């Protein structure tokens, strides 16, 4: 079987047995990941659907960038499009650069080397994301063999280290167990261990805590935070949970209906957001101090787009919308708070004594 897999090992590896935290020297120069004008269309039976509309963002080395938005805004599709994990009816345009390489132009075989080694994914559903008939050790071993040509004892030792890294007690014993013997939180830790097995430069975590209960969530977030310092990986965090964002992210990109509508440092976004939609998102978070008012929701739903409309896609749900919003497609411009926002009528800066 192994001869069918491409030979690996050109990447430097730390000696097994030595400390896991082999910090990679920081890359000099441009950002780690550079996404430019990424658009994704799906051909469906009722015509094309535009899921991602000219999205651009960058992720620096070791940075945690959160991609935020409600269901259907295109954040997961954006993440999957980075390494072309989408089904064959997806049409991806734009450019995705990881270091020197342009991922959208790589052949499928080249992408297989990138996936799991340079860009690794953690998905939402830990209960179904592990193969039920293979032990945890075999599944971890599979990844280690594929990308690092490790096998046998060496692979076992590395697998044990990995489970330890993600905070799983009795790692050697867990390796022999099947997924159904582990709880959801444990499975998600295993998923993370598999994802970081090859010390990826970018970890894409697609709603990594959504399917878990709250106490377990906190544990998983701790693991993600630790990974960043221990193996020096950048994280693209996809979530609709603003609590997770506040906890983990350095920077936030807010998406709506396939477009990026606001981009800011985490603190800036929470304190000085400029887009009405961002405000809506923040107000939809339950706040114990604002109990009387309850949760304020944004009326309406995310539209499904056939094509890129020449107007603000949020106009139909926005209290501030007027004819100007519908006259043309708003550009992503520097807003009043000093970060980019795609809005004709951005919110004014809050009073100092807010």
């Amino acid at each position, binding site marked *: 079987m192994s001869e*069918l897999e491409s030979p690996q090992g050109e990447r430097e590896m730390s000696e097994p047995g030595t400390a896991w935290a082999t910090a990679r020297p920081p890359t000099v120069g441009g950002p780690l990941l550079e996404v430019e004008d990424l658009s994704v269309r799906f051909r469906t039976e009722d015509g094309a659907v535009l899921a991602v509309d000219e999205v651009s963002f960058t992720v620096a080395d070791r940075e945690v960038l959160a991609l935020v938005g409600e269901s259907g805004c295109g954040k997961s599709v954006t993440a999957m499009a980075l390494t072309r994990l989408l089904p064959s009816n997806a049409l991806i345009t734009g450019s995705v650069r990881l270091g020197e390489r342009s991922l959208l132009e790589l052949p499928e075989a080249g992408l297989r080397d990138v996936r*799991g080694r340079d860009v690794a994914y953690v*998905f939402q559903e830990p209960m179904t994301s592990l193969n039920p008939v*293979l032990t945890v050790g075999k599944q971890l071993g*599979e990844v280690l063999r594929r990308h690092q040509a490790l096998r046998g004892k060496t692979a076992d030792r590395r697998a044990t280290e990995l489970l330890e890294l993600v905070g799983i*007690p009795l790692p050697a014993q867990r390796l022999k*167990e*099947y997924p159904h*013997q582990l709880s959801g939180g*444990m499975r998600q830790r295993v998923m993370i261990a598999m994802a970081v097995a090859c010390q990826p430069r970018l970890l894409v975590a697609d709603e990594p805590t959504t399917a878990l209960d709250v106490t377990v969530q906190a544990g998983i977030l701790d693991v993600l935070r630790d990974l960043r310092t221990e193996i020096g990986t950048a994280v693209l965090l996809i979530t609709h949970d603003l609590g997770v964002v506040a906890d983990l992210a350095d920077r936030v990109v807010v998406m709506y209906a396939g477009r990026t509508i606001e981009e800011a440092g985490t603190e800036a976004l929470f304190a000085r957001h400029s887009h009405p939609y961002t405000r809506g998102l923040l107000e939809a978070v339950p706040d114990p101090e604002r109990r009387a008012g309850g949760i304020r929701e944004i009326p309406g739903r995310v539209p499904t787009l056939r094509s890129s409309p020449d107007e603000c896609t949020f106009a139909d749900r926005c209290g501030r919308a007027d004819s100007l919003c519908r006259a043309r497609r708003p550009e992503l411009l520097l807003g009043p708070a000093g970060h980019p926002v795609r809005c004709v009528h951005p919110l004014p800066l809050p009073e100092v004594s807010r």
Partner: protein
Amino acid sequence: MTTLDLTTVDAAPAEATVGPSRRRALRRLLRNPLALTGLVVVVVAVLAALLANLIAPYPPDQTDFSAALQPPSPAHWFGTDELGRDQLSRVLFGLRVSLLVAVLSIAISIVVGVPLGLAAGFYRGLDRVVSRFADTLLAFPFLVFAVGLAAILGPSLLTATTAIGVAGIPAIVRVTRSETLRLRGLDFVAGAVADGASDFVLLRRHILPNSVNTLIVLATVAAPAAIIGEAVLSFLGLGIRPPMPSLGVMLASAQPLFRSGPWLAVFPGICIVVVTLSLNLVGDGMRDALDPRESPR
């Protein structure tokens, strides 16, 4: 017993010694009285067939004209035929041939059908071709196909095995294809793609192992059909030829003598019924035991 710890995260049970789910399935199978009965009969039948040369009281081809066409007696439990051959011995050796045909024909179905099904389920372009091929095979009447094959190859064990094996291919292709389609959409397969797995690895490590349960059930259910198929073909003279005994051959040669020696048809007939019924019971039990929807998680 399996104890699943779903509540605690970090404090998991210290001694979790649960094997793969297949071992639990076996335990469930053994708790089902019908399936257990079937399993016992099948095991006895297989042992009897394997050990036929040791336990048969007479050589199967030994004629004894002084004892021709005798009803069952202490010397000949199942009686003798018109040539004085001991029917018990012939049933034992016949069972061996019948089971051999069943096993080989299922092997043919699986060896050809599983790769085709995997390919059809995984590659859309191939699906059209493979599925039409399977449909064509399915539309072809089994007996017409067997007659045609016998016309080319001549009636023999090989002919019967091939005919039954080929007739079983479409079912295997379809089931494997639908399993592949189902599994391909599951999160762990998508996850393996995101980990950089090649198509071969996906099929070999993720899709095939998860289809095995279904294929086991299918093979168990196909076994009695293959035994009956062999009996039909041999009865019609398209399969195994006398003097080699098979259950179907024995039924066929008993036909003209049914009035004077009904036991000649009764014992091979009972043998076919009991073995196929037991195999069906085991198959049903397997399906229940391996069905993930019935497994308490």
